[in-house]
């Protein structure tokens, strides 16, 4: 959620039950302003909170002028001192894939994973050895935030527009989705580089507006039904909750510009989703 409308956004997202305490909110308002100035970001988003056993991580993201450019992620343990996280790579994802369980809350904590590695010495047969690999919690944090972003960070249709030169900008004339559109999954897009857009047939592409429909919509998400759309407060607030990453809440007030998402959760994917639907 945008730091400029932090208070309103937190109140709108409060339906999921988790928010921030007043002291954290006060700290965020001041510190994120300083982050924006120091790092010279165009927009700073408060991404959410990952609950650990010992401490919680507060995550913020900074965006440049081009909204789809890779975002910089910062974390903090007390909402005051922010540290930049390294960008996510595929090796990190591979390392982190075997780590299970909750986050500890200590960035220097190391998870020990035993892996089978085939070692072959000269001239002998390759044999398997148990190698204990240590994965740092920071790596896991980076990878999980990246996965969540790629999977479930969403924006309403029309909030961003794409210029002919390529960069994506915030649409200042976005007036909000009408109520009839707000209930459909196709009005929400993934906030990441489009993956399945080019697989659409020409007939489908003919109906799309190239400046607004340049991202993947939620309609084709697998598994089907992994989003829960609800209208709260008597249809004056649309809330989307992800079932794949429980804890992610997206809110939007129809016919206004307010929208945003926040993740407050344990940072674990819900692998049992197909059993639960």
């Amino acid at each position, binding site marked *: 959620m945008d730091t400029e409308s932090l208070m309103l956004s937190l*109140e709108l997202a*409060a*339906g*999921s*039950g*988790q*928010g*921030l*305490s*007043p*002291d*954290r909110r006060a700290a965020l308002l001041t510190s994120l302003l300083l982050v924006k100035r120091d790092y010279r970001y165009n927009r700073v988003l408060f991404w959410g909170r990952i*609950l650990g*056993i*010992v401490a919680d991580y507060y995550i913020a993201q900074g965006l440049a002028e081009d909204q789809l450019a890779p975002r910089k992620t910062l974390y903090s343990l*007390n909402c005051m001192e922010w540290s930049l996280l390294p960008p996510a790579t595929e090796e990190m994802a591979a390392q982190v894939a075997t780590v*299970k*369980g*909750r986050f500890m809350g200590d960035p220097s904590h190391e998870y020990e994973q035993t892996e089978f590695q085939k070692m072959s010495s000269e001239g002998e047969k390759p044999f398997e050895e148990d190698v204990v690999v240590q994965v740092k919690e920071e790596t896991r944090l980076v990878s999980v935030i990246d996965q969540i972003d790629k999977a479930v960070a969403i924006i309403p249709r029309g909030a961003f527009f794409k210029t002919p030169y390529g960069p994506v900008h915030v649409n200042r004339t976005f007036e909000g989705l009408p*109520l009839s559109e707000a209930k459909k999954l196709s009005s929400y897009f993934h906030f990441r580089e489009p993956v399945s857009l080019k697989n659409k047939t020409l007939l489908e592409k003919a109906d799309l507006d190239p400046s607004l429909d340049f991202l993947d919509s939620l309609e084709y998400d697998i598994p089907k*039904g992994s989003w*829960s*759309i*609800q*209208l*709260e*407060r*008597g*249809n*004056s607030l649309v809330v989307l*909750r992800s*079932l794949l990453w*429980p804890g992610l809440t997206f809110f939007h007030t129809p016919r206004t510009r307010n929208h945003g998402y926040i993740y407050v*959760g*344990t940072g674990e994917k819900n*692998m*049992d989703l197909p*059993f*639960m*639907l």
Partner: protein
Amino acid sequence: MQPTYEMAEKQKALFIRGSGDREQDMEEEVADTAVPNIMEAAFHLEQAGVGLSAEESFRIYLALKQLVEQQPVHTCRFWGKILGLRRSYLVAEVEFREGEEEGEEEEGEELLEGAEALEPPGGEEEGEEDEEKVADAVPKPQWKPPPAVPKEESRTGANKYLYFVCAEPGRQWARLPHVTPAQIVCARKIRKFFTGHLDAPVVSYPPFPGNEANYLRAQIARISAATHISPLGFYQFGEEEGDEEDEGGAGRDSFEENPDFEGIPVLELVDSLANWVHHAQHILPQGRCTWVNPLQKTDEEEELGEEEEKGDEGPEEVEQEVGPPLLTPLSEDAEIMNMAPWTTRLSCSLCPQYSVAVVRSNLWPGAYAFASGKKFENLYIGWGHKYSPDNFNPALPAPVQQEYASGPEITEMSDPTVEEEQALRAAQEQALAATEEEEEDEEEEEDEDLDD
């Protein structure tokens, strides 16, 4: 935009005070009201970063007030919110006044008894018919379903409180039925999201005995039993009644507020889990809080039992299940995968003197408890599922049952074909003809003998 205005109208109705003498109403309300101070609890929980927004909490307070006016409520509490796919549930935990029996429960029981009464006469009629057609008697199955564990009485164990749910403050409160042990046992094995409609079916394996209202009630029972905690000393046991040894160590199941509770300093509450205790009874594997031997026959069954053979008894002895007694401290809770089951936090590390101690459950994500001075409160906001570090393994279906062994007595023999029948008849005629010729030969021989 109709639904928006409709909702706003309903919520407006909450805000309007009832008619009557204003002064008297005010005094009555201030004197005794069953509705708790939700705003205070919400304020404290907000310090911990938990809970719905303040405006929503106020609306919930008004909705609870409406519930108290409509139902004969003795105490009530906002239990929490369970999120669903299409709608969410706001849950209120309620205790009726003494003597107010739940009319719906009786209706349900009458229906069940009526259905059971119909079955035995049907069985008797079938018995008579069978006696007439002995040759075509269908073998009766010898399998008897395992005896059902009886559900707990109202106001005891898992059914200690009544629960009401509604989708949004302003809507009608719906009552949830009491929970049966079979439902709790099944709810432990399945993992399903709630859709938000109480009459939705729960499609699962093992098949859940009930619809979403029952599943919701079972999950609420499990969450309450596992996560309702209070600071040590807030509740104490009442005076002892009877011998504990006679009850087989069942333990005490009632407690009362301790009037001398002084409050534990917040720092101590955060440091050690032994300062918190469970004040909800643990649910045994059987599905109840107090153990009941399912093989004990009731009076009706004993009369029938004398006629039947008693060969089936004997090897089925069931062990008594024992759980942790009431008011056990949290430090005795089992760990999850080397991780503490509870996380304690000070709500604000910058001002510890005015902070609130917050405890978060790692076993049921979404369950929170706070304590500050002499006040404490429990709240649950979440999806209603237990945390399990391993992936969910659904129960496998039962193995395929053995078929009846095929032997000669049930193997179907093929009918002889026309050619075979004709060949047989031809052979029989030949045999007949042969015997006739022999007889004629014998007669001729006899004649010849006679002639000589």
